[in-house]
């Protein structure tokens, strides 16, 4: 019986590939048969992930994706080396926790650049026929429950993820006729280095409060990565413009 979540014959670009969720996406996509192109800033970490994955199916590309002017060259090069792209996961992202009065414009701009604009710029390039598989293409943005729900101290992060959620819908509508599906996946707190940093930097009572709001407990990166696999696979061929919430019940409260 064929695997409904197979990603055989698909080539997938993953940004933020050295982060907890990005790395898990790389592993799960490769396990499902995809060729993966991993973009991240830390070459050593990229090389470690490359070792874990069958190297024939994995291309690493150390690059800072906030260098917007260079992104087209990057996409051109990876397409030249690995073929046209059929999937994209924007997992690059960072978080700051600050009171509103300290959240000055440059801080918001900094988060928007990485969490939001870099992803949409790569997606924009991948809409070009010269770069994409014209039969079927799927873009997945890692958003957050904070893209639709508020959280004290997270103004900049909420802005950056809220923009992802609505940008995804705009793209989905415009690209449906081109056989490109666009969706987001919204985790709550996932066990990663980023969430450990978060817990280091918020008051104890906020931490307890956050943990209480996850009825199924804190999630693992695989929970998010497998949701991405689903959205990248042809099994989800009728799904576009959605925000798939993977939050252990956080937003049901």
């Amino acid at each position: 019986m064929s695997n409904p979540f197979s990603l055989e014959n698909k080539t997938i670009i993953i940004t933020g590939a050295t982060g907890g969720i990005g790395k898990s996406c790389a592993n799960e996509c490769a396990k499902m048969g995809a060729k993966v192109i991993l973009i991240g800033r830390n070459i050593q970490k990229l090389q470690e992930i490359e070792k874990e994955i069958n190297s024939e199916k994995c291309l690493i590309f150390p690059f800072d994706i906030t260098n917007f002017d260079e992104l087209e060259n990057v996409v051109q090069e990876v397409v030249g080396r690995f073929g046209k792209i059929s999937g994209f996961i924007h997992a690059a992202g960072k978080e700051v926790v600050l009171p509103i009065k300290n959240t000055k414009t440059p801080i918001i701009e900094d988060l928007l650049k990485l969490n939001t604009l870099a992803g949409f710029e790569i997606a924009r390039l991948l809409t070009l026929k010269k770069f994409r598989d014209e039969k079927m293409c799927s873009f997945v943005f890692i958003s957050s429950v904070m893209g639709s729900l508020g959280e004290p101290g997270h103004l900049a992060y909420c802005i950056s993820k809220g923009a992802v959620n609505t940008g995804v819908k705009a793209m989905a509508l415009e690209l449906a006729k081109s056989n490109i599906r666009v969706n987001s996946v919204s985790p709550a707190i996932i066990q990663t280095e980023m969430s450990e940093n978060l817990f280091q930097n918020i008051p104890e009572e906020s931490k307890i409060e956050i943990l209480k709001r996850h009825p199924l407990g804190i999630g693992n990166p695989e929970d998010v990565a497998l949701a991405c696999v689903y959205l990248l696979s042809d099994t989800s061929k009728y799904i576009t413009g959605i925000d798939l919430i993977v939050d252990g019940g956080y937003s049901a409260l």
Partner: protein
Amino acid sequence: MTNSEFLVKLQDELEEENTLTLDTKFKELEGYDSMSILSIIVFIDENFNKKLNTQQFKDISTIQELKELIGLDNFED
């Protein structure tokens, strides 16, 4: 930085109407909440180039203790 400069700047940062002293307890301040700790962390980073984390605030209650956390050698008096 002198004690008095520190107290005035901190009062300004916390938007407190009452004058602060080294004996002032954070929890007695009117608008003090979990966000205030984050605000103080930014204030200390900007003024003393020292990065504290929220865990370090669990064991302190007065401004004197915050001053000790920053390091007394950062103060002129």
